[in-house]
């Protein structure tokens, strides 16, 4: 049990923490301790629940017992009503932490017989306070006294006396009041005696109701003056103020991968910055959800937690559709790394969406948040309001270093249309685009902006396969940019051309070989001819020599036979003799 119920601030007002999530934040620490606070609002806007939570939290968390004086509901009804918020009043009563006192006032019962005062109420209250040493009191709703007792001047005077008395007792008081036509309360008394006035509201705008809370006045202290939406859920009331207007978060240098390898390359090779905001815009069916799911899957693979808000598809639809491109998201859900929140945008107002988003983020504390799509929120407010809300959400996320991916549906061909409002807020902007040509649509991805990193300026064709998203270079040539089957065709043509070129070269090579072979054959033929000729000539010459020799032999033999003298053979033949001799 925490004991620091009264936040001491030197020379300023002491405050009693309410313990209600967000209320202490907008009141700067709680309600004025020892003084009365008015909780004003129409019927059904949560006054009684808030007041009861103030007592229950006081009793359980701050060690301050409380008295609840109910003028409208019996104790049994009250106990039952707040049981839905998880408050066990009977247990608190048994532990003397709480007193419920039902004050029944029925005008018909009272016959006035002369002068009177409300000392009875004082005594009852004093008795209840003393019984448990209460520090907190709730009067719900005190205006009943005005309608029950005929003498309004007396009631007024007595209530003023009551508040003085309660202040003397040092109890922190919440009184509830039904809103009047133009005043905070019907009888215009409570707001003057209260040091703090909180207004609750339950407004219907375009058939969507939003509960809002506002600190109207708070004597002697600063407080948030805006209206904040609040939720009443099974764990009580929570207010989710996004009050920060400063841009003070420290920028992380850490980079996280996108889940698409070539997109990482486009982003300087390392992916997004952690804690940055990424906008994925595109017309219907360009693959925004696929990019988002890829990123979610990548985060879960890293062991991080991802919170996925979907305004258009149910979680099972997303998981089924992403399964078809190879992502097993249910696995991550089962391991508690991925959480889906799917709600139709018109279920709540913009502020309520924001409050719920922040609540879920605070509870799940993810590293990555995906909002698919922010354009679904268009129905919940005008462009300015939406921009403001998204800006506040992004500030909230950046302060916590959470990376957020927003998808945005653009309509028509204007690539940068819807995003004018939001694009200036985001750090990285991926634009997905359909290119229609040759009777088909193909997806392209442009990296329109990426703060703080060297990034690619090229368009990539974006192909969704059975195994996730892949990028292909688009064909840029004399015929313009080609994608899809035209790109494939072009690639094919180029391939064919390359093959053709190769064949030509081979053919030429072959022809050259042939030529060389022919030439060599020719050379061989010539050489053969030459050598045969050479052989013939050689043989002829040797035959001549033989004949000459045999002639000489014959001449010698003839000379011997004619007893002639020997002719000196000096190498010169005297052919005419021979020839004459022979021919003769």
């Amino acid at each position: 049990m925490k004991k620091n119920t009264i936040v001491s601030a030197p020379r300023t007002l002491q405050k009693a923490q309410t313990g209600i999530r967000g209320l202490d934040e907008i009141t700067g620490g709680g309600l004025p301790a020892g003084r009365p606070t008015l909780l004003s609002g129409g019927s059904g806007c949560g006054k009684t629940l808030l007041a009861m939570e103030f007592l229950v939290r006081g009793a359980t968390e701050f060690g301050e017992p409380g008295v609840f004086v109910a003028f409208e509901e019996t104790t049994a009804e009250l106990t039952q009503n707040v049981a839905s918020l998880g408050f066990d009043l009977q247990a608190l009563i048994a532990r003397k932490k709480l007193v419920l006192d039902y004050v029944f006032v029925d005008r018909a019962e009272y016959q006035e017989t002369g002068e009177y005062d409300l000392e009875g109420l004082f005594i009852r209250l004093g008795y209840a306070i003393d019984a448990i040493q209460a520090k907190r009191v709730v009067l719900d709703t005190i205006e009943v006294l005005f309608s029950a007792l005929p003498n309004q001047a007396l009631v007024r005077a007595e209530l003023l006396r009551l508040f003085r008395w309660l202040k003397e007792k040092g109890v922190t008081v919440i009184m509830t009041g039904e809103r009047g036509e133009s005043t905070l309360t019907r009888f215009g008394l409570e707001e003057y005696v209260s040091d703090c006035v909180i207004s609750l509201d339950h407004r219907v705008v375009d058939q969507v109701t939003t509960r809002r809370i506002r600190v109207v006045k708070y004597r002697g202290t600063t407080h948030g003056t805006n209206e904040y939406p609040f939720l009443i859920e099974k764990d009580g009331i929570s207010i989710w103020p996004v009050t920060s207007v400063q841009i003070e978060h420290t920028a992380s240098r850490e980079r996280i991968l996108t889940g698409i390898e070539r997109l990482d390359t486009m982003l300087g090779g390392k992916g997004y910055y952690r804690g940055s905001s990424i906008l994925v815009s595109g017309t219907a069916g360009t693959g925004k959800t696929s990019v988002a799911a890829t990123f979610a899957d990548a985060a879960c693979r890293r062991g991080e937690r991802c919170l996925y808000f979907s305004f258009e598809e149910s979680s099972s639809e997303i998981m089924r559709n992403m399964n078809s491109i190879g992502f097993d998201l249910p696995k991550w859900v089962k391991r508690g790394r991925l959480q889906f929140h799917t709600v139709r945008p018109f279920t709540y107002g913009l502020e309520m969406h924001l409050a719920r988003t922040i609540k879920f983020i605070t509870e799940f504390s993810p590293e990555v948040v995906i909002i698919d799509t922010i354009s679904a929120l268009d129905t919940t407010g005008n462009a300015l309001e939406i921009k403001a809300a998204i800006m506040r959400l992004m500030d909230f996320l950046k302060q916590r270093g959470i990376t957020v991916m927003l998808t945005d549906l653009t309509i028509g061909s204007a690539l940068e249309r819807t995003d004018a409002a939001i694009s200036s807020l985001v750090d990285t902007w991926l634009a997905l685009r359909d290119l229609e040509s040759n009777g088909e649509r193909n997806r392209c991805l442009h990296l329109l902006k990426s703060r703080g990193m060297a990034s690619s300026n090229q368009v990539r064709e974006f192909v969704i396969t059975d195994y996730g998203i892949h990028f292909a270079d688009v064909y840029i040539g004399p015929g313009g940019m080609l994608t899809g089957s035209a790109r494939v065709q072009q690639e094919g043509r180029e391939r064919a051309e390359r093959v053709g070129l190769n064949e030509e070269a081979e053919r030429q090579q072959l022809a050259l070989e042939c030529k060389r072979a022919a030439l060599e054959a020719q050379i061989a033929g010539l050489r053969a001819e030459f050598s045969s000729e050479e052989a013939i000539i050689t043989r002829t010459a040797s035959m001549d020599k033989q004949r000459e020799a045999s002639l000489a032999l014959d001449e010698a033999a003839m000379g011997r036979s004619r007893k002639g003298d020997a002719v000196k053979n000096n190498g010169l033949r005297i052919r005419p003799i021979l020839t004459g001799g022979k021919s003769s």
Partner: protein
Amino acid sequence: MKVPAESGEAKLVAVEPAEWDLLLYGAGLRHREHLCQAHPAGQSRMRSSTLGKSPQFARGDQILAVPAMVRMQSELICKIIGNLSNRANVVIGLDLCRRAAAPRGAGKEGAHAG
């Protein structure tokens, strides 16, 4: 102490039975005699409670305004508030007397809780 003016306008008729348990909260018993005068035939057992000493009664009988007087009959039947100076309202409020039926029209019933 003012004597009620309406005693001349309408006659008060005692309601039977004429025995009551009365509990007076708050101030003293200064006006007991008024009660007796208003319903001389009646017998009353009157107790008084100074709430300061036994504040739990204030809760049980739903007392806010004081002085207050309640008429008991096993449980609380009627309750009046004020210093009992308006004698007619006292007896009517406690359902001890009713206004006599007016000559014309319906008589006004004394205000009381059922």
